């Protein structure tokens, strides 16, 4: 645990050194957010509500979906892949460390920096120009905190698995791009899943994508209430555990393959 904490601390420090990049990302995310709000408002027209989301909800949704891009690394994360291709993974394997724990600790630091620098700041910026809605009670804030953490874990589990493809393919980047693009769409980052046709919403229940992002939105906006909130959190937790277990198993297979066949 101590090792994990020490790694997280340094990863946090390390990502803080990329402040300028994070702030540049923030600016981009902010303007795209405004653009998306304008489009959604145009689509709403005179209607006060679409698929259970009010105008204020959908504005807040747009803000959140821009604010969490960095935190969840929705558009893609290739660090593990790169370490396989550059051979850095060799030095990591020479240290008495579990590889998954090592990357998880680093991702905590990365996610925290992005949450604070890009997430929180961008919400403050949006608050200044549009009307956002907020959870009303302390308990709802607690739910939001839980769903944010679980959503990040699910996204990490997914990203980790995608990156493991690099052990089998000499160029898994293309596959990665496809996987991340699909995730962006199916997790509800481009459009709330409520707007999708029913049959697609049905299918998506059987994938981890909504648990990365859409669940967080639903809990934040209060479209889920009562026990539904707890079921949604449980669903996220199960996806997180499932993905991490599969990731660990695939990683072991990958490393075994690497040490037997050579890199």
């Amino acid at each position, binding site marked *: 645990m101590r090792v994990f904490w020490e790694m997280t601390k340094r990863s946090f420090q390390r990502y803080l050194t990329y402040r300028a990049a994070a702030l540049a990302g923030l600016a981009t995310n902010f303007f795209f957010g405004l653009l998306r709000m304008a489009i959604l408002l145009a689509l709403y027209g005179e209607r006060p509500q679409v698929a259970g989301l009010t105008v204020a909800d959908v504005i807040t949704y747009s803000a959140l979906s821009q604010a969490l891009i960095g935190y969840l690394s929705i558009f893609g994360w290739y660090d593990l892949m790169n370490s396989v291709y550059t051979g850095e993974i060799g*030095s990591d*394997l020479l240290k*008495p460390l*579990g590889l998954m724990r090592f990357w998880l600790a680093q991702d905590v630091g990365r996610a925290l920096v992005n949450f604070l620098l890009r997430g929180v700041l961008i919400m403050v910026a949006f608050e200044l120009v549009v009307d956002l809605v907020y959870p009303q009670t302390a308990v709802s804030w607690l739910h939001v905190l839980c769903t944010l953490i679980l959503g990040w874990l699910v996204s990490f589990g997914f990203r980790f698995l995608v990156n493991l493809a690099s052990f089998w393919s000499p160029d898994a980047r293309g596959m990665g791009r496809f996987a991340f693009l699909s995730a962006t769409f199916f997790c509800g980052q481009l459009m709330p899943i409520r707007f999708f046709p029913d049959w697609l919403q049905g299918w998506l229940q059987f994938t981890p994508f909504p648990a990365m992002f859409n669940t967080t939105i639903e809990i934040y906006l209060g479209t889920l209430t009562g026990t539904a909130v707890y079921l949604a959190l449980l669903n996220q937790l199960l996806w997180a555990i499932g993905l991490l277990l599969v990731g660990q198993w695939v990683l072991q297979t990958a490393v075994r393959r690497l040490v037997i066949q050579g890199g």
Partner: protein
Amino acid sequence: MITVQNLQKHFKLNKQYRGAWGSVRTLFSREYEVVKAVDDISFEVARGELVGYLGPNGAGKSTTIKMLTGLLVPSGGELAVNGRLPWRDRQAYVARIGAVFGQRTTLWWDLPVIESLELLQHIYHVPNGRFRQNLADFETMLELKPFLNTPVRSLSLGQRMRADLCAALLHDPDLLFLDEPTIGLDVVAKERIRQFIRHVNRERGTTVLLTTHDLSDVQKLCDRVLIIDRGKLLYDGSLDALQTRFGGRRELVVDLAEPYSDVSVAGATVVARENGRVTYQFTREEIGASELIGRLSQRFRIQDLAVREPDIEATVRRIYEERLLEN
């Protein structure tokens, strides 16, 4: 410490066919070629030895090192370090070894050196007192102090290498792997690193396996060298013995004060002569340098002279090129 017996590593490469039709055939072909990267190698390294591991590119050096560090599983033969099989329990095994690969760093690129070192303390579970003691020692010997708080990306190559050496030794490993630890460094930096390696080997008793293309590293550090080529171990012994066996001859260059018509001398042969400068070749077994000089000074008036030792680089180059060691 290290026991290697009939060690083998074979890689299967899918057979590649030529041409457009060939590439389709390649796709469906189940045929493959076996590349014997390491082919039946045996040696032992005792605790406290400092051994050089030499060979041309593609000889199988890094494959051997990868097997010794647990990154590759052998295809055959036996391999044990400290009685352990390196790949069996990776985390437990690597906790007792250290490694520096000159071409890449184990330190975190964006963080100050000290941060990486302290993180390694936690990763290897080094007790605080021991860590402080080791760090203090290495700090002085490697002169780390001026750049401990500098991010690794801003270090010069020499500084980075010193930091990496420190990082590899903080947990008191029994066995240290060094791969090209002086590559790209200037003469002063090389010398400092060599002194440090020697110190670690002698004072701390760390067993060192040094892979390098820089023969002066080996010449100054290693009592024993292993030479490998095409997956086979060709030589196991001292560099001096290798030199006597295959080495060029020693040379004595003499500037004569007066012109002589006959400059020959017993025990040496004249190989070059221009103006007053004569170059003799001789071997260690036949005649010592001082005796030869004595004979010459009896016969000639000598202005100046210099002994040239045979060049180890040239010897090893000949061994690689002419395959002198293969039967």
